[in-house]
């Protein structure tokens, strides 16, 4: 336990202290996180991200994220994730995830920085609440084929599920959750990247959509929230 604590401290050496330092002067400001999933589908045209103007680093944004989660409104059935497939090629049915809380994330496996950062928080939730599940919906079906996701998930915890699908099916799923993403050509040897919003979406054991956790929300905050909701 002590070892884990030290590891965690080593991590927040670069992140946590920054949060602490920022908490005071940012407390009254709203975070620049994306809106929660729209009640009705909101088509979002992919936009060019080739804007050369300096942007805040994702780390800085994460560091400025506050725990001020909005109250959970009336639960509603989780937005559809239709026509997607599991790594073994079988059709995915969101209803199969009922019975436990599920955190839904839209990302892509060839994402070496931001996605692992968020998935690391998800793994932290898994450790505290092992029955929690996660669903990784790729926004990069070209590279994240079922075969590729099959190998990728073999390195992931068993309660992390990954789905892919046709570009159209993934776009519809993303729109349902208010997720924006766009392919960006790069100069990198690693090829194109996908720009994408990076919130986590909570679907409860009854298949009800409850809320979004903005990018940068820490595992501990999610755990506390899930425990409160479950006790609720």
């Amino acid at each position, binding site marked *: 336990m002590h*070892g*884990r604590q*030290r*590891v*965690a*401290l*080593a*991590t*927040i*050496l*670069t*992140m946590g*202290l*920054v949060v*602490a*330092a*920022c908490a005071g002067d*940012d407390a009254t400001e709203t975070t*620049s996180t*994306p809106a929660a999933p729209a009640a009705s589908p909101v088509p979002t045209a992919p*936009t060019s*991200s080739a804007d050369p103007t*300096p*942007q*805040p*680093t*994702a*780390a*800085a944004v994460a560091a*400025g994220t506050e725990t001020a989660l909005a109250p959970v409104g009336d639960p509603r059935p989780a937005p559809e994730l239709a026509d997607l497939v599991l790594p073994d090629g079988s059709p995915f049915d969101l209803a199969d995830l009922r019975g436990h809380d599920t955190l839904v994330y839209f990302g892509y*496996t*060839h994402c*070496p*920085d*931001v996605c692992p*950062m968020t*998935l*690391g*928080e998800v*793994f*932290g939730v*898994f*450790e505290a609440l092992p029955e929690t599940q996660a669903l990784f919906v790729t926004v990069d079906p070209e590279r994240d084929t079922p075969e*590729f996701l099959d*190998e*990728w998930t073999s*390195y992931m915890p068993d309660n992390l599920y990954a789905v892919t699908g046709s570009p159209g099916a993934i776009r519809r799923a993303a729109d349902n959750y208010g997720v*924006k*993403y*766009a392919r960006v050509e*790069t100069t*990198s*040897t*690693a090829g194109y990247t996908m*720009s994408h*919003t*990076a919130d986590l979406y909570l679907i409860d054991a009854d298949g009800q959509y409850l809320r979004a956790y903005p*990018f940068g929300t*820490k*595992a501990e905050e999610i755990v506390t929230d899930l425990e409160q909701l479950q006790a609720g």
Partner: protein
Amino acid sequence: MTRRTMRTSLISAASVAAGLSLALSAVAAQEDGADETGMMASMEPAAETGAMPPGLHVVDPWARESPMLDLAGAAYMIIRNDTDADDALVGAASPVAEVVELHLSSMDAEGMMSMNQVMEIPLPAHADAVLEPGGYHVMLIGLTEPLVADTEFELSLEFMTAEPQTIVLPVRAGASMVMDDDGMADDTGMADDMDMDMDEEEGED
């Protein structure tokens, strides 16, 4: 918000790194601190005397576990420039990757995360450049071997002005690492020093 947040981040990170550096010096001053000084292969050799000459000092480098060769790895560190001159990290190379690039993750106005290759990472005089998840990072592309937690590999860093340095990075599991019970904390006394600094820093803040 974002601009102030970034500045605050830099100040905070700088104070952390300064504390770390003090702790490292203190460790180095102990004659029996052989293991700990081994960890500081990236530091200036003169650190053994307890005094750090001005230069670029790499603090707490690490890379995330990356089991699949098809996926890029990422390496992070703090580069402390305590000289009077601005410098920049302009390139890197490693035996574990065919190509090593410098990248920056950022959030655009619509809340989308983007990652872009950069030609250099600025290392302003008397400041700490923080390479961290969600920010600047070193990307390891075309891995020649999986990056496995609790192992190490070499990374050479090329600077605009300063002499190149080769550092040794530990590989750590996961982004938040809370999963990893027996991770890097057991490698050296480094984590203990961080514990101390955490407490001190929190007290000062």
